[in-house]
């Protein structure tokens, strides 16, 4: 397997915010010219506004839509009473068997499965009129008793499908170890809350032909899902998603509001724009599930791990068995002979959760890395040293060698960056200007997968290289990284390269999720460019130079363009190696002993994710993950009022996410060693590991500062204030 040689790889200097080429689509973003899904001036556009259920569980008795229908500008009010049936929803049910679980079937029947579930869609000629008319829809329900509380119902949790139980060595071996930590952890439900509201414009072009401008992380998946739901040929569905204003996992599937808008466009025979309200973003497009975890971990007095037991119960809805894999991390992060785990779910009367940045591992890392930190104090061993003592040289789960692992370098770089030598092992022992000062660290890991991807590469007569593939870019800067790869491979400057994405017309690419894009599409771009270069070399005979003048060659051969379409996918290496990216997060915090306020003093994040293709955007991705991890640690929590089964903080004033005042400078450090066994470009994913482990690093620093171990996130001031001292 050949790899790209690049001096960048050897560059030990870490990037600052101004280093490296800027984003290829940056100019469009800073001038407001970038068009997100709700921003296309489609001819004849009308507006849809959803009405949500006001009960949590039960049935719709009646819906009075008369007032709304008669309101000015209203074109239609759609409910399950009058909606055309979505063909894909009409699956025959076997009366003898339990109903097949699946997404909410919008406007299909009278069932209410969660609070805020769409019960009507009002379409009017302006947004204001649709919004007002929606307020006039009056639904009556037959309410049933609902359950939205996880903690009180843990006993009812069930095992999910496959892969929920794991056992290596002796079950609960930790109990026999001389030093034991056994603790429970609660992770509240967190909401993706990308800044762009989920939105789409749906237009029927013919009875069996549709175009959608949609917020999606995967245009191809959205395309095939819509085709399946409406029983139309895949090629008759066009999906455009050029710019996506963040998603973090919330746009990995077709949600009920998308189906609703498509139904609406059919009914009014006009293109319908539907933009979710921020409150709907909390219930109708998923969230990270509320999860209870229990960890038992035991070690010898010297700090060798004897056993880890990790159990988790995650919240799901009653209609879908969504399960993260929070316990997976305990199988592979450390060399430990005995590990057993279980991963259960509990169906509650809530909207379904979904994948959110660092799914499973972010949840699990908080528990495991908090427990390991606690163990380090019991052992009186430095937390980094404890990790080094249990360093996994091969994958503890499969026994395979790692494709590439430089985690020891990462520990070292991070420790130097934060000034770990200044940390005191004794918790609560350092003050600065009346604030308690503490240091903490934690690790993260995520599988480094590579999905099949196809790239069409075309050299135009003027020497412009056009690359096309149906990937989305939710923010990391996919286009920028792809252009960098192509520029280097073809030997032409970046400004001569155009990367077209976000359109279902282009060749296949995976969803932008699970940190796979640079590895998958990046490899495809590299291979397509190599193929194209080879084609040029064939044209001019062997012995072509490394930086040919492509335009000149085309002219000499009377060609208007030269094109290749290259497929790329993982090979035999997947059976040979265990493949992961790793991160280590270091923080120092200041805690006010009187108010319990936690301030981030310094943050250093290290990524061991192979070769860094685009230093500027990679750095931003690491910083962004750290910020979201700080939110997870200190403020994010979707709170249910279980009496009504409704969220009480479904807005950005009450659900706190980090703002500028919460975030110090964050140092992003890259080990930047190519993983030569994983793919031809040596790069691995970074989106997830940037977040995974961050929350535990903060919690561990808070412990080092205060001596208080907070195991139920977020670490709000009330959990740190010493109330007894106040009375």
């Amino acid at each position, binding site marked *: 397997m050949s790899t790209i040689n690049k001096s960048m790889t050897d560059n030990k200097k870490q990037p600052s915010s101004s280093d490296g080429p800027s984003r290829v689509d940056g*100019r469009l973003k*800073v001038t407001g010219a970038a068009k997100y899904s709700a921003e296309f*001036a489609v001819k004849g556009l009308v507006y849809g506004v959803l009405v949500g259920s006001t009960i949590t569980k039960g049935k719709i008795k009646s819906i009075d839509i008369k*007032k709304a229908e008669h309101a000015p500008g209203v074109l239609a009010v759609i409910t399950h009473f009058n909606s055309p049936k979505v063909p894909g929803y009409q699956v025959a049910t076997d009366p003898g068997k339990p109903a097949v679980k699946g997404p909410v079937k919008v406007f299909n029947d009278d069932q209410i499965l969660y609070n805020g579930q769409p019960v009507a869609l009002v379409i009017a000629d302006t*947004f204001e009129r649709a919004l007002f008319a929606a307020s006039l829809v009056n639904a009556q329900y037959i309410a049933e008793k609902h359950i939205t509380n996880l903690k009180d119902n843990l006993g009812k949790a069930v095992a999910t499908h496959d892969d929920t139980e794991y056992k290596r060595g002796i079950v609960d071996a930790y109990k026999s170890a001389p030093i034991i930590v056994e603790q429970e952890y609660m992770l509240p439900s967190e909401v993706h809350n990308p800044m762009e509201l989920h939105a789409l414009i749906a237009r029927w072009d013919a009875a069996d032909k549709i175009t959608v401008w949609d917020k999606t992380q995967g245009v191809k998946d959205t395309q095939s899902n819509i085709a399946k739901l409406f029983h139309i040929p895949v090629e008759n569905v066009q999906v455009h998603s050029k710019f996506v204003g963040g998603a973090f996992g919330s746009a990995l599937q077709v949600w009920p509001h998308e189906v609703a808008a498509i139904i609406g466009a059919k009914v009014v025979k006009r293109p319908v724009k539907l933009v979710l309200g921020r409150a709907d973003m909390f219930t109708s497009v998923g969230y990270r599930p509320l999860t209870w975890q229990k960890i038992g971990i035991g070690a010898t007095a010297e700090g060798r791990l004897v056993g880890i037991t990790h159990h988790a119960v995650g919240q799901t809805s009653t209609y879908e068995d969504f399960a993260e894999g929070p316990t997976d991390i305990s199988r592979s992060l450390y060399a430990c002979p005995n590990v057993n785990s279980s991963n259960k779910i509990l169906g509650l009367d809530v909207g379904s959760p979904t994948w959110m940045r660092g799914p499973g591992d972010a949840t699990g890392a908080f528990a495991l890395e908090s427990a390991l930190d606690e163990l380090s104090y019991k052992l009186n061993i430095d937390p980094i040293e404890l990790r080094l003592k249990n360093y996994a040289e091969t994958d503890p789960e499969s026994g395979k060698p790692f494709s590439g692992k430089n985690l020891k370098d990462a520990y070292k770089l991070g420790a130097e960056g934060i000034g770990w030598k200044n940390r005191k092992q004794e918790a609560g022992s350092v003050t600065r200007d009346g604030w308690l000062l503490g240091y903490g660290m934690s690790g993260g890991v995520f599988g480094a997968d590579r999905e099949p991807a196809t790239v069409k590469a075309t050299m135009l007569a003027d020497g412009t290289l056009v690359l096309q593939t149906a990937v989305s870019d939710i923010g990391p800067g996919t286009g920028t990284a792809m252009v960098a790869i192509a520029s280097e491979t073809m030997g032409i400057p970046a400004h001569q390269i155009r990367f077209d994405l976000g359109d279902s017309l282009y060749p296949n690419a995976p969803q932008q999720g699970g940190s796979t894009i640079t590895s998958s599409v990046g490899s495809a771009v590299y291979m397509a460019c190599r193929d194209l270069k080879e084609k040029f070399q064939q044209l001019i005979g062997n012995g072509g130079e490394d930086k040919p003048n492509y335009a000149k060659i085309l002219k000499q051969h009377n060609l208007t363009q030269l094109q290749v379409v290259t497929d790329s996918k993982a090979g035999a290496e997947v059976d040979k190696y265990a493949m992961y990216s790793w991160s280590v997060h270091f923080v120092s915090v200041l805690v006010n002993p009187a108010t319990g306020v936690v301030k981030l003093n310094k943050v250093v994040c290290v990524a061991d994710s192979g070769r860094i293709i685009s230093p500027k*955007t990679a750095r931003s991705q690491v910083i962004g993950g750290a910020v979201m991890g700080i939110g997870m640690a200190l403020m994010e929590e979707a709170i249910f009022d279980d009496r009504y089964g409704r969220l009480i903080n479904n807005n*950005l004033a009450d659900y706190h996410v980090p703002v500028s005042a919460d*975030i*110090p400078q*964050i140092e992003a450090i890259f080990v930047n060693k190519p993983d030569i066994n994983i793919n031809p470009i040596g790069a691995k994913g970074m989106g997830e590991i940037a977040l995974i482990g961050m929350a535990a690093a903060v919690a561990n620093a808070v412990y080092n500062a205060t001596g208080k171990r907070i195991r139920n996130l977020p670490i709000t001031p009330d959990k740190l204030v010493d109330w007894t001292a106040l009375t």
Partner: protein
Amino acid sequence: MENKNAHSKPESELEEKDNSRRNFLKQSAFITAVALTPAPAVKAAAMHLDEKIAEAFEKVPVKLEVNGVMHNLSVEPRATLLDILREQIDLTGTKKGCDHGQCGACTVHVDGHRVNSCLTLGVMASGKKITTIEGLAKGEELHPMQEAFLKHDGFQCGYCTPGQIMSAVACIREGHANSETEIREYMSGNICRCGAYPNIVNAIQEVKSGGQIV
């Protein structure tokens, strides 16, 4: 410059809207009657159709000067400046992130001051000068703050970015960019879920210390 069109949308679209309105009026014969006599109005009110009567009176004229272009619009009093910009004038650079004044994505300048356009009714901005992200650059030449955001990668997805940049320019103009801490405090009304805050702060500091006129 005076823009004669009620909207800046293409003619064809306007016609289509007008058409649908005419069709609607034809179908609802009683509406025309309302204009002539109060009796059907009373009946209409009894039928809970008072909304339809209101329709005839509900639009008000508004003059908005946006990025130097005058727009004479007829809007509903309840329409926000944000929705007027995005839906009527097709200036979609100004973003909607919450519609409740909680995120800053919709930040524009009204008479030089930063405001949340989702909390500003269009009628409140009548006669005022509005600058949106589309009006910040001088033709091809980017505003220094736009350049700095590009250089320091002050964004990822780019959705909060127009609001951040409009806020950042105002932050310097207000004299609230004298230290990193002050910048962070005065930029905290603009949420960036992609977490570009440190880069945004670097961009603002560069413009501030560069002494360019913003």
